[in-house]
């Protein structure tokens, strides 16, 4: 079932007179940069989910807040949908444009407004890159903890919109745990402050509600994040296993020993070999699985933790445990993991990255089921896994030029996500729903739950003009999706509620 906006099931969008809109924008916001020629629009037709493309009606690139406000007011008056976009690195199509909508690019708001070392906060514009915050804070011995693998490129506004994660979430939390305050503009351009510089604020926790709301409730115009003191030291252990199950059990054993690693990552054999060919990180290429366990903090504690974890890993049946001898080797160990996606990309013309989460105890069964699905759909799957927090990134290898392969990859991906839901997990841990997982939302939530989500949307955007079609599917779409599954054979999980 196609995921591009389909008015038949996603709702009718207002028809927009492009000439009138362009004229109005130019007349009322003469300094606003507006792209409207076909060739200018081309670079904006997708975000990080590049398999899906739609040419936006117009692209606006504001430099000043009053321009953002002006764009929102005009679009609200003329009933034009607005899709906000940061750096465009999102992997779920959250910033996928609409043919009948304006793409509001916030990338030019890229100033760090204030770093306050005594308060341990950074106040930044939404287009500031994630890594740039940590770089600006570094002279004070501070950093911003969430580190999605796109951190050199992704912007903080997008991080808030998607509640971005990274490899250090188990210990340091997601974006939502590291925010103090956001400034937003509502669909009709009204300014609201959510959160505050204090640790809590009166009223409902709208900061939590907006974090991860995928541009559906408002447009983020400023973000205040918490900074943390940089850990004194970080050490990494690499453990090899002759079975994925043993590696999975070792993860539970580390936690049971009372240790919360800074990072705890697993890769399967296909991912190990791909990463090793690409980065030469020194990974054991004949291992069925490796674990990377980073321990950070004060020197003495890290030393004790390393010894304890080494013991646990050995008892769990690791065939080899290595500690990075120096900082260079630690960085190399991580480089293999952080480049796992492009490394796997070298094995295949295209790959499709999934983002399901599962309770960790379900890992062996889920990996077996993925292997079975991989055989059934005749597509290879490499597994990269934030093992500490149960977030899996199976990478499905395919060739879009082979007829039918993209469809098969999509179908396989859908099955994997439904499997995650079945074992008590979620269809998305950190990439967001966007358009990509819009159909799988129908497997995770029932119609009453989706109806309540639509009610939340209606509280902030009754006209439905902000990023229509993303995050929450219409009941109509779910009915069609459910019907299609039935039509093609058996329902995948008959015990799940359908409508």
């Amino acid at each position, binding site marked *: 079932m196609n995921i591009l906006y389909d008015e038949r099931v996603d709702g009718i969008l207002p028809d927009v007179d492009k000439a009138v809109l362009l004229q109005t924008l130019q007349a009322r916001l003469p300094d606003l940069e507006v792209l409207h020629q076909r060739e200018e629009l081309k670079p904006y037709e997708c975000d990080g989910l590049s398999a899906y493309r739609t040419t936006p009606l117009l692209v606006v690139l504001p430099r000043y807040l009053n321009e953002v406000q002006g764009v929102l007011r005009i679009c609200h008056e003329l009933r034009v949908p607005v899709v906000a976009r940061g750096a465009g690195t999102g992997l779920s199509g959250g910033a996928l444009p609409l043919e009948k909508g304006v793409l509001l690019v916030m990338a030019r708001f890229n100033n760090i407004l204030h770093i306050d070392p005594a308060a341990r906060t950074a106040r930044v514009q939404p287009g500031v890159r994630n890594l740039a915050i940590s770089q600006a804070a570094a002279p004070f*011995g501070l950093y911003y903890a969430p580190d999605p693998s796109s951190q050199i490129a992704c912007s903080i506004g997008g991080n808030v919109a998607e509640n971005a994660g990274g490899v250090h979430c188990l210990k340091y939390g997601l974006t939502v745990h590291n925010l103090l305050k956001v400034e937003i503009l509502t669909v009709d351009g009204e300014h609201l402050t959510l959160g505050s510089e204090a640790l809590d604020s009166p009223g409902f926790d709208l900061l939590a509600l907006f974090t991860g709301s995928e541009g559906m409730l408002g447009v983020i115009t400023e973000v205040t994040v918490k900074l943390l003191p940089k850990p004194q030291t970080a050490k990494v252990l690499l453990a090899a296993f002759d079975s994925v199950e043993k590696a999975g059990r070792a993860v539970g054993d580390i936690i049971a020993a009372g240790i919360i690693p800074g990072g705890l990552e697993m890769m399967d054999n296909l991912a190990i070999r791909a990463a090793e060919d690409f980065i030469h990180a020194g990974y054991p290429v004949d291992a069925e699985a490796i674990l990377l366990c980073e321990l950070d903090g004060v020197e003495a504690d890290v030393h004790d933790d390393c010894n304890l974890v080494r013991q646990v890993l050995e008892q769990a049946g690791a065939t080899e445990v290595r500690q990075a001898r120096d900082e260079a080797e630690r960085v190399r160990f991580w480089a293999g993991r952080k480049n796992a996606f492009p490394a796997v990309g070298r094995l295949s013309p295209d790959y499709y990255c999934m983002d399901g989460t599962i309770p960790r105890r379900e890992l062996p069964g889920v990996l077996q089921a993925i292997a079975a699905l991989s055989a059934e759909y005749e597509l290879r799957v490499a597994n990269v896994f934030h093992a500490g927090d149960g977030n899996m990134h199976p990478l499905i290898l395919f060739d879009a030029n082979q007829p039918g392969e993209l469809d098969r990859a999509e179908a396989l991906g859908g099955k994997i996500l439904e499997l995650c839901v079945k074992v008590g997990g979620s269809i998305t841990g950190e990439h967001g729903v966007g358009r990509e997982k819009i159909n799988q939302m129908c497997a995770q939530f029932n119609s009453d739950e989706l109806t309540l989500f639509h009610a939340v949307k209606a509280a902030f955007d009754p006209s439905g003009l902000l990023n229509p079609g993303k995050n929450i599917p219409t009941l109509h779409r779910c009915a069609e999706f459910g019907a299609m599954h039935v039509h093609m054979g058996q329902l995948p999980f008959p015990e799940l509620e359908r409508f």
Partner: protein
Amino acid sequence: MRTAHDIDDSAVLLEQVNQALAYATPLRIQGSNSKLFLGRTVAGEILDTRSHRGIVSYDPTELVITARCGTPLSELAHVLDAAQQMLPCEPPAFGDATVGGMIACGLSGPRRPWSGSVRDYVLGTRVITGHGKHLRFGGEVMKNVAGYDLSRLMAGSYGSLGVVTEVSLKVLPKPRQCLSISLEIDADRALLRLAEWGQQPLPISAACHDGQRLHLRLEGGAGSVAAAHERLGGELLDSSFWTDLNEHQLAFFDEDQPLWRLSLPNNTPGLALPGRQLIDWGGAQRWLKSDADAAFVRNVVAEVGGHATCYSHGLIDSPFQPLPDALMRYHRTLKQQLDPRGIFNPGRLYAEL
């Protein structure tokens, strides 16, 4: 883990909500009533959550515990304790608080600035909604960004958006070492030192100045705690101090004057307000015992970017700091969407909600 008290009473709670919806009867949702003094008085039929209790699941290696709303916090703490784990945000019990009340009020203890708040540990909830449905949001996994985050929205909403019947919480292993010390230093200097220490990787997990002395809790591995103790010096302090602080059982809280909670940016200098103050959360939370006028307290606090909550019940009509007009408007539309008949704790947070 199951005890004789474990009862799934959600059908009864749902039935009561549906009755209330049918007749538009306001409900006053209560657990043990331990935080009745917070917020405005609700006139309504009592919905007692305590019949729906018990720990639904707990697997220490998954770091997740799921409990029904009526489960006493003491029972939760007992079960976690047995597995050497804890709920790091240290919600106060104020007697016999329940899990549901902990979520509804969202109060966190001394570790909050370092560990995060109650809301930060919420992974998923089951909620009886204003449409008479029993729904599930979030889940039992650490990372989950599917749909809007209604679970965390419930934390601190004082029951005005729905009845939370069950919650899944992230838990963590207890620190291997814990040591409390107290230093002879005045409040202003203590605040300066705390701002300085905050930028360093010190294992501080609680910091309170009681007017005379700075009390610190150090938690971590044996090495870091010993090193920090050696560096900071001070006298050893009994760890029961933190429980007394959290439960408002220090002598400071006994005085007869009204009690205010001030929530402030964490590097706020000493505030000149009449009455006595006790600094917690490394400066980000201050308790004020004062007869000062509410508007005066709030102006002083708002000036520095904070807000003030009145903890003395009935003293003023709006114990929570009033919201700016635009923000209140969105609070109202959200309340109307999620509780269209206005049955859940009407007026508890604000008269308009």
